[in-house]
């Protein structure tokens, strides 16, 4: 089989590709801030070009930081995926509930700082107990604890991705493998290779999120390159210089995303379904049962630890009620911002996803258009947004300074992630249905309404939910563009963080958790109803997208 990258092979779902105007809107909304930064670098008063190589190429201390950052991000991504896969296998063995991926994905929306504070709190109390008992205290700083806390932040996402990946493997293939080869063979030779591309794609996203985060490492006294970039920005105050200094981070993330997402072309993906039947012939060896039990035992405290610690810090229902009352304005506004970002991200993400799977000659450029904004640190996105929307050319629209700016910040940062989710969803659509629609339905609009949208609905919902959750916790870009007098919930939480009002911080963070869990519940409900309405239970032998199914 000849190897060819994902962008060279058109998928029928790319039918009805967008025209130039929607593409222009994607460019303005998502690429605009990046382009504004690059234009500022080339045309503004930034560092002279002669100094660029020195700023761009990491040497000495920065090289060591870069390598260590990549090491930390790789460890977190690998551990996350390993544990996530084991948990996914375990959950899928015992239950077919379609809501698991959503539940875990929503838990990933808790801001990283929440995990850092919660685990600091847990560690402090544990050490108090250990010292009281005359035992050795646990380490409260260093790579191990920083890696663990990043892991606890990202492992819900890893489990969600793994569940989706495991779910995407056609059940009939697994059944056949189990019948022919017994216990472990189907897992190693069928399930993991087929789920591998999606798992790898998820691993790329975990790597990116870990690499760009300096909040958790700095709390646990671990220096990473992302902190160095921020420190450089703080010292010199020049966005153009910061853009150059962050190039090693951009290169690492673009490389990781391209490598990991590129393997999606090999994925054998069954259409997403509600209540897929279990593999009845499955038999696991004891060591695998033990491993998956261990993984569940690791994930439980990782997921519940922060929530329990937050609840303990709130104290009482009265206190929680008072905190929520005080933050009602920010909670409502943030919900509105997140909802608007989620809804507006759908068409934009669909535009990019259609171009990526469409096999156009510009496919590589579209891949870059999706990965580059994702790799840009939040503060730089914020500066790019100011340069774009507050520029004399666009300022007349009065969008800058309005309450829409946090929505635009969220779109600039998270539409690319939504586009990746949509790309996976597009590739999971049944090509035979699309081909049939093409033959039988002449109208493009009817094809869109009657065929594409029903098949894409789960993907759209997934992309929207991801954007909603991430927007709710966004701070670094929002802080630079929020309208005066209209702070978001995350801004309020971080503000109180400095004041030391841990009960208030805990209460507001619990409110944020409740919001995302509510959205998770709604998503699961809609998914369930949608599956029943459209009745898309798989038929044995239905062709699935991906090479192995062709």
């Amino acid at each position: 089989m000849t190897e060819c990258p994902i962008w060279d092979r058109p998928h029928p779902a790319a039918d009805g590709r967008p025209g130039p105007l929607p593409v222009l809107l994607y460019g303005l909304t998502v690429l605009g801030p990046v382009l504004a930064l690059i234009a500022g670098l080339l045309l503004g008063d930034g560092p002279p070009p002669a100094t660029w190589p020195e700023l761009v190429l990491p040497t000495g201390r920065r090289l060591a930081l870069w390598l260590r950052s990549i090491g930390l991000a790789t460890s977190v991504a690998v551990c996350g995926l390993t544990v996530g896969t084991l948990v996914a296998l375990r959950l899928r063995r015992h239950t077919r509930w379609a809501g698991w991926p959503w539940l875990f994905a929503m838990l990933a929306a808790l801001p990283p700082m929440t995990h850092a504070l919660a685990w600091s709190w847990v560690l402090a109390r544990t050490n108090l107990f250990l010292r009281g008992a005359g035992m050795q205290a646990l380490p409260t700083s260093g790579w191990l604890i920083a890696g663990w806390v990043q892991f606890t932040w990202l492992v819900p996402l890893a489990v969600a991705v793994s569940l989706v990946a495991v779910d995407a493997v056609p059940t009939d293939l697994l059944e056949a493998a189990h019948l022919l080869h017994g216990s472990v063979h189907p897992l190693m030779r069928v399930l993991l290779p087929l789920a591998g591309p999606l798992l790898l794609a998820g691993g790329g996203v975990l790597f990116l999120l870990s690499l760009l985060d300096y909040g958790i490492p700095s709390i646990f006294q671990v220096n990473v390159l992302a902190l160095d970039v921020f420190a450089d920005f703080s010292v010199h105050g020049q966005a153009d210089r910061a853009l150059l200094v962050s190039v090693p981070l951009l290169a690492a993330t673009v490389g990781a995303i391209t490598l990991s997402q590129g393997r999606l072309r090999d994925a054998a993906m069954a259409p997403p379904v509600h209540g897929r039947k279990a593999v009845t012939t499955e038999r696991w060896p004891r060591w695998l049962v033990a491993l998956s039990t261990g993984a569940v035992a690791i994930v439980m405290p990782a997921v519940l630890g922060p929530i329990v610690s937050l609840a303990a810090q709130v104290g009482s229902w009265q206190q929680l009620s008072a905190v929520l009352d005080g933050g009602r304005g920010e909670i409502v506004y943030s919900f509105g911002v997140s909802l608007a970002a989620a809804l507006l991200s759908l068409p934009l993400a669909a535009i990019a996803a259609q171009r990526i799977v469409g096999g156009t000659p510009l496919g590589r450029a579209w891949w870059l258009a999706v990965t580059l904004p994702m790799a840009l640190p939040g503060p730089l996105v914020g500066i790019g947004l100011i340069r774009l929307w507050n520029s004399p050319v666009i300022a007349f629209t009065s969008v800058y300074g309005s309450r829409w700016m946090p929505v635009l910040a969220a779109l600039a940062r998270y539409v690319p992630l939504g586009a990746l989710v949509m790309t996976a969803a597009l590739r999971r659509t049944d090509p035979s249905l699309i081909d049939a629609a093409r033959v039988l339905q002449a109208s493009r609009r009817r094809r869109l309404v009657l065929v594409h949208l029903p098949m894409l609905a789960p993907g759209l919902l997934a992309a929207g939910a991801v954007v909603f959750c991430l927007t709710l916790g966004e701070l670094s870009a929002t802080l630079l563009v929020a309208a005066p007098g209209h702070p978001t919930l995350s801004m309020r939480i971080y503000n109180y963080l400095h004041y030391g009002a841990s009960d208030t911080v805990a209460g507001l963070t619990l409110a944020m958790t409740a919001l995302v869990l509510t959205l998770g519940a709604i998503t699961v409900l809609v998914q369930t109803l949608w599956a029943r309405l459209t009745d898309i239970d798989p038929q044995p032998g239905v062709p699935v997208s991906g090479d192995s199914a062709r």
Partner: protein
Amino acid sequence: MIRATLISLLVLLTAACIADRDAVVVYSSVDQVFSEPILTRFEEVSGIEVRAVYDVEAAKTTGLVTRLIAERDNPQADVFWNGEFAQTVRLAEEGVLASYRPANAEAVPPAYRDPDGAWTGFGGRGRVLLVNTDLVADAAMPRSIHDLADPARPGDRIGIAYPLFGTTATHAAALYAHWGPEAARDYFASLAESGVRVVDGNSVVRDMVVDGRLDVGLTDTDDACTAVENGAPVRIVIPDQGRGEIGTLIIPNTVALIAGGPNPDPGKRLIDFLLSEAVAAAMIESGWSHVVLGSSETTPACLEGVAIRGMDVPLADVVAHMEAARTDMTEIFVR
């Protein structure tokens, strides 16, 4: 889908803003919990609506400064109320600030005012040592910042915030200005060698001392006083107050008018209000300010009866050493 895209973006682009009337836009790096009540009071007495954007510690006080510089060609803010001075001086150098000499600024010592009227200092905070009294006996109480580098004290029981950001960076620059770059660099290198805990912010230093994860931490008076008022087992030590010692760094709040801001007159009224005696008293009562630069009879509860002697170092010298100090601090602490 395409139509949905167009409609959505069209709605976004036509989001018209109602013209600002009797409003003032203020960017404040002072904690919202301290600054909001004062701004609300201004609304009550002036009838002018205040629209505020507050910085957060996670942005290391660079968030709003970055925003003001990026907005320079089309300013959105009228007033910048900063919890420290170094970034305000930088904004003046960048041409972001307008000249305005409030009448009531005369009570502020000249050292805490810009000679060209670009900014005015008021209500200050001090750099202090916060000590956990459960863990450190009276006899072992530190008295000087030199005690932080004392080999007799375990470095991992002492904490400072990253000296690359915020008031800790300003403190480092002040020591560069006072001791000279070489001596100051040696001091911080010795702190790093002793294994001192470098954490994410002054509030984290406070929390770690309160929790007993640190014996001693270098922080600001507002953080330290919060711990005292919450009943934590801590004591505030004003460092280097003895005869012949350097004193501690006093960090004034600064307020400035933004050049070309949309509402200059309400902006000037807000600045006048912030420099009033009533606000000085309110800031002390709330726990934000602990050093009076103008005239006020109110004294901070957590430092009652304690006189703070400041370092004898011109603010302009501190700002002049900021870049060199931060570059060194990055080399020493981000490894």
